[in-house]
């Protein structure tokens, strides 16, 4: 079982890396949305600093949303999903493998890039560490929640806009707690309560979401 899971994760990562444009689109989107804030609200450092935690987090959530489009759609269209369902792997494990590959190739770059964008908006030192930590815990949760939406939207025409309506409300708690952690760090308070909450969300989503995704995938093939 582990060997097939490993095959799948490697296959998905190499497909995304081969296509390149997916990673570039998501990363460029993340950068552009963040740089829109100084353009819209003006260059005062104090205002930008106050906006920074929310700004980076909103940009990361939107970037995560647009990266979901092809999570299952390609495999669904070309029949790979049928073969996966027929192979003797437990479908929730397969779903988890695909989500892991998706996060590694499209979520992790956002985490790595975030200190740079945080810095450009005026965050410093420990705040940047907390920003990166909160995204490292939060973006996997976003990927997991988004995967449920992506699986449900398979075969639906104009699924993109509908997916935003379905998935963004689910992102709200993660967004509040994630940006809250950075705000706490800015006000000399400990961000650990928020980070623990993000960790708890991840711990709950990790075993439960794959079950939901597997159910949705089965329905999409029927």
């Amino acid at each position: 079982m582990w060997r097939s899971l490993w095959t799948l994760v490697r296959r998905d990562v190499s497909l995304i890396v081969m296509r390149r444009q997916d990673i570039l689109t998501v990363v460029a989107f993340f950068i552009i949305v963040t740089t829109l804030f100084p353009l819209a609200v003006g260059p005062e450092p104090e205002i930008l600093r106050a906006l920074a935690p929310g700004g980076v987090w909103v940009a990361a959530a939107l970037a995560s949303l647009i990266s979901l489009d092809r999570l299952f759609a390609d495999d669904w269209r070309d029949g790979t999903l049928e073969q996966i369902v027929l192979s003797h792997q437990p479908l929730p494990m397969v779903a988890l493998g695909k989500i892991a590959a998706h996060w590694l190739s499209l979520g992790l770059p956002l985490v790595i890039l975030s200190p740079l964008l945080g810095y450009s908006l005026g965050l410093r030192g420990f705040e940047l560490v907390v920003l990166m930590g909160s995204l490292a815990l939060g973006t996997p949760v976003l990927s997991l929640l988004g995967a449920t939406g992506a699986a449900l939207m398979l075969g639906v025409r104009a699924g993109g806009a509908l997916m935003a309506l379905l998935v963004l409300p689910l992102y709200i708690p993660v967004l509040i707690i994630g940006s809250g952690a950075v705000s706490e760090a800015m006000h000399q308070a400990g961000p650990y309560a928020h980070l623990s909450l993000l960790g708890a969300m991840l711990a709950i989503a990790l075993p439960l979401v794959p079950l939901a995704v597997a159910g949705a995938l089965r329905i999409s093939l029927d």
Partner: protein
Amino acid sequence: MLKAEGLSCRRGGRPLFSGIDFNVDPGQLLFVRGRNGCGKTTLLRAICGLTALESGQVTLRGEDIRRLDESARADLIYVGHRDAVKDEFTPLENLAVQQGLRGEGFDEARCLDALEEVGLAGYEDIPVRYLSQGQRRRTALSRLLLSSSPLWVLDEPLTALDVRAVDWLLELLEMHLAQGGLVVTTSHQPIDGLREANILDLS
């Protein structure tokens, strides 16, 4: 070994087929025939357990096909319209992924042999996107050579294949049947080459 009882299915509120019974034993081929839209693909997908039926049951060795345990699922191989071949990968990489998904280790020599037999020698390292439709189909069919599954479910396997490839495939099916395999297939082309086909007419 493969048994169907009283299969019926509705798609989009319209009855597609009903009261289908058949029994396929080792060494037998079931040829599903019918006009476009009569439910051939749906029936084949139902035999694999992908599509839910309105009523009836498909069993393989007495076990419900939708509840097969993990080792029993390896008894079945399905090549459908959507051929699960990735454009970005080369035929060899495609086979490696397929083998990995089935939980087998990648055996490069066997994969190369299989690709040579389907007539893709010299194309192993070219991404499938640059290959023709027929070569793509051959890549998908080369999976049959690597599997030890007794039951083959093939949806329109002859589409896009040239005369020589059709002959090769019919020969392969013949060999599989002679070794006690089971084949369920559909095609719009005649399959005169094959002996004793059980024919199921859906229309």
